[in-house]
């Protein structure tokens, strides 16, 4: 299994590097003149050229990418200007390996920015995943067990209606009504556990977590329902019943074990993609997580940050895939890694 994991990690790293190369190429293929943006108004061509050099955008794309990869391995200094380092060592920002780059837009290393943003996205993802699993799976099981009844149709219909609303709408609805109009909850703003304790952290994550969870709720209800129904139709369920097991035991021990296995995969991948940032939810609630960072850096043509996010978010997904596959092998004895 370890050899398998190691091989997957190596492939994953190569995939990530390829991904960064693609991002570099796409970035420079855009019609926007990044240096002109950064330089501001009234910049002469010479000034733009200086800015371009300072941002490192003057070098060929592959060379910039090479420097980025080298920075990942050995770390970098910003600005990489030996002369400036001599005269003004205090200007130089060290970026230790694995250095993801330096964002001129933010005046910080990308590592720092992601270090700040990731806990927000992780918190949001954790709260959301707990909410949607708790409600999605149990509602899905209920719907499957009472299949065809009013309750089943109610659950499926209601979650579909919720699903039909855009995330943006749900988030704004919560803010406008739950917070501003009814004053039930305070205006949420991310508070880390270290700053405010678990209760405060959770309280502030409730609305955004709910918004995000509602996005996934419908699909998890439907998937759970479908998987449970499929599993209940399996021959081994008939065997289990023929053995004289109670229907509770048939459901929980035999049907769910099989039904929830694909959900583990789904949850793993969904959770990992959320670690890379829930763009709309974070945007609506001004949660400065990976999603918000993605939007902000895209709008500011902040290539280093975009690349850093690609790497980290991509790594989350790849890692999650590996973990999910290993989990799968542990859950399902038929699966052999290799």
């Amino acid at each position, binding site marked *: 299994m370890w050899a398998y994991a190691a091989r997957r990690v190596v492939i994953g790293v190569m995939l990530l590097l390829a991904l960064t190369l693609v991002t570099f190429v796409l970035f420079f293929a855009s019609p926007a003149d990044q240096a002109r943006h950064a*330089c501001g108004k009234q910049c002469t061509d010479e000034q733009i050229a200086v800015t371009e050099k300072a941002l490192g955008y003057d070098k060929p794309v592959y060379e910039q990418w090479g420097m980025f990869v080298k920075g990942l391995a050995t770390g970098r200094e910003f600005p990489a*200007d030996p002369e400036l380092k001599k005269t003004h060592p205090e200007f130089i920002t060290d970026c230790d390996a694995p250095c993801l780059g330096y964002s001129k837009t933010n005046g910080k290393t990308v590592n720092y920015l992601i270090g700040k943003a990731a806990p927000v996205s992780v918190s949001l993802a954790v709260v959301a995943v707990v909410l949607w699993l708790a409600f999605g799976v149990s509602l899905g099981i209920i719907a499957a067990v009472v299949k065809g009844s009013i309750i089943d149709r109610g659950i499926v219909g209601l979650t579909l209606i919720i699903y039909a609303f855009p995330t943006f709408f749900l988030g*704004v609805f919560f803010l406008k009504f739950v917070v501003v109009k009814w004053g039930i909850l305070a205006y949420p703003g991310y508070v880390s556990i270290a700053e405010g304790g678990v209760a405060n952290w959770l309280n502030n994550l409730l609305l955004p977590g709910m918004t995000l969870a509602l996005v996934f709720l419908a699909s998890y209800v439907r998937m759970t329902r479908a998987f449970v129904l499929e599993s209940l139709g399996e021959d081994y369920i008939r065997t289990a019943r023929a053995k004289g097991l109670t229907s509770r035991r048939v459901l929980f021990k035999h049907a769910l074990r099989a039904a929830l296995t694909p959900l583990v995969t789904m949850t793993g991948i969904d959770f990992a993609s959320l670690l890379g940032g829930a763009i709309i939810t974070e945007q609506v609630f001004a949660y400065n997580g990976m999603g918000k960072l993605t939007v902000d850096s895209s709008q500011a043509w902040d290539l280093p940050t975009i690349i850093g996010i690609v790497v980290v978010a991509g790594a989350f997904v790849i890692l999650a895939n590996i973990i999910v596959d290993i989990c799968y092998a542990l859950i399902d004895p038929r699966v052999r890694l290799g």
Partner: protein
Amino acid sequence: MGKKLLRAVAASSALALGLGLAACGGDSGGGGSANDEPGEKGGTLQYLQSFLYESADPQRIYYGVQLAQWRRVLYRGLVAFPMDSDPEKATTPVPDLATDTGTVTDGGKTWAFTLKDGVKWEDGSDITCADVQYGTSRVFANDVIIGGPNYTLSYIDVKDYPGPYTATPEQQAEFEKAVSCSDDNKTVTFHFNKPWADFNQAAAGMMMVDPYKKSFDEGDRSKWKVLSNGPYKVEGGVWDKNKGATLVRNDQYDESTDTPDQLRKALPDKINWVVNGSDTAGELFNDRLIKDAGDDQYAITSARVTAQQLPKVQSGPVSERYVNVVSPFTDYLVMNHKKLTDPKVREALAVSLNATGYIKALGGELVAEPADSIVNPGTAGYKPNPAFEGISDGEGDPDAAQALLKEAGVKTPFPIKLSYPKTPTADKAMAVLQESWNKAGFDVTLDGQGDTYYDVIAQPDKDSDVMWAGWGSDWPSAMTVIPPLFDSRPNISKTTCGNDYGCYESDELNKILDEAANASNVEDQQAKMQEADAFLGKEYAYIPLDNQKFNWLYGSKVTGFTTTAASSSYPELGLIGVSQK
């Protein structure tokens, strides 16, 4: 006002405003209605900001609203614009850190300022000429101090100066000759390579010649650090881009070196400056102000009331806390001179413009007023452009346009591609223009574009015929409107037309602009700019559309809510206080 903010405004305000409104509530350029009582000191003001700053470094700030508001609380300038309801006074600098508004010699090429005694940084050290010199020099380091206005680079009489960080001693000495200090380190003298008649306006409106303490400088790492010399300081010394900061009183600030009634009353003891960069933050901030509960009673916001909210604030108690003002942002159409070479065709577009319908489509007179020049009325020396008389507030004359097209001898319907940044409101407004032009013998294709709009229309080989654009001046002088938009020399190169989106090139205009630039006093300069505008009007190089209007709301415990020309029509932070009753 930085263009970047303008872009934000252009994309998100006038064109994004959706609802047409029965008009009421005229302009109130001056004070807030219920708060004429003299403000009292003390209390905590809540400032709700709905966008993110780009920097807290004075030499890198380019957002107009940030420049105007931080001038009142954190960064004093050599000179500053007074908080006056009279636009003319509000656009005329008064002394701030300096003892006067500058001594001009050498036909406008030399400016000298002497610093007041007792002006200090928040760390207690004196502000010296060397600080002004250093601050000015930083702008030259385009490789470190990226962003922020660059005007000084083309004026200061120094060659090949790379900024203070990498300059050789010789280069540095050269710069310190161009921006020199007196022996007592009190008087700074700027030597320019050409006259700069409105330099003190630039110095008041922007921070490119603000002092900066060398020992505080960490280059790019200083981006979010604040060393204040104003009445407040940032708690912790660092501005959090995504969260904002708390401003508390700066005990090193000496009111006696200042003119509080003119420049900054600094009434609240504390300003709780909350930043929320979410797209919906502005609307929600105003929802909270409408509700007026708890701390929000003490709140003002950088976010304007949205079109959907406008009906809610027109009547009842909330209308007492509502202000509608003309902003310094003007929208216009610019013709692609590479394609529409015939002035008759351009004139036909102008005379058949349905300006009234356009403003109605934007949302009516609460969100925009007709513009009769590309120069905003809040600009010093503004004068309506005679070419657009009867056009800017008319519904368009298709017959006259058809006659012009006939005269021009072009085949009709004449195809026109109209480009603009796409929003639902913009689509509606542009459809109005399309309709009126189609009646006049054009065949208009609408071309709504995405985020890279300005990059696309800057390209010399674009196929747009007419482009929508917006502009706000960097300081209230037409010098920051017409030359940056129509002087072909700094704008046009092989790869770009810069801000001269129509790729307009005219030696005749450039000559007028040079004369204006070389004027030794502001009056002559303003006359030249009016001439330049009239020339552009005759050429139909552009068509003015509208001056955007701002709609503001504030909490019931806020006193002295005002907007002025000096505050870019944003809340005038220097006058605002909170009631402690």
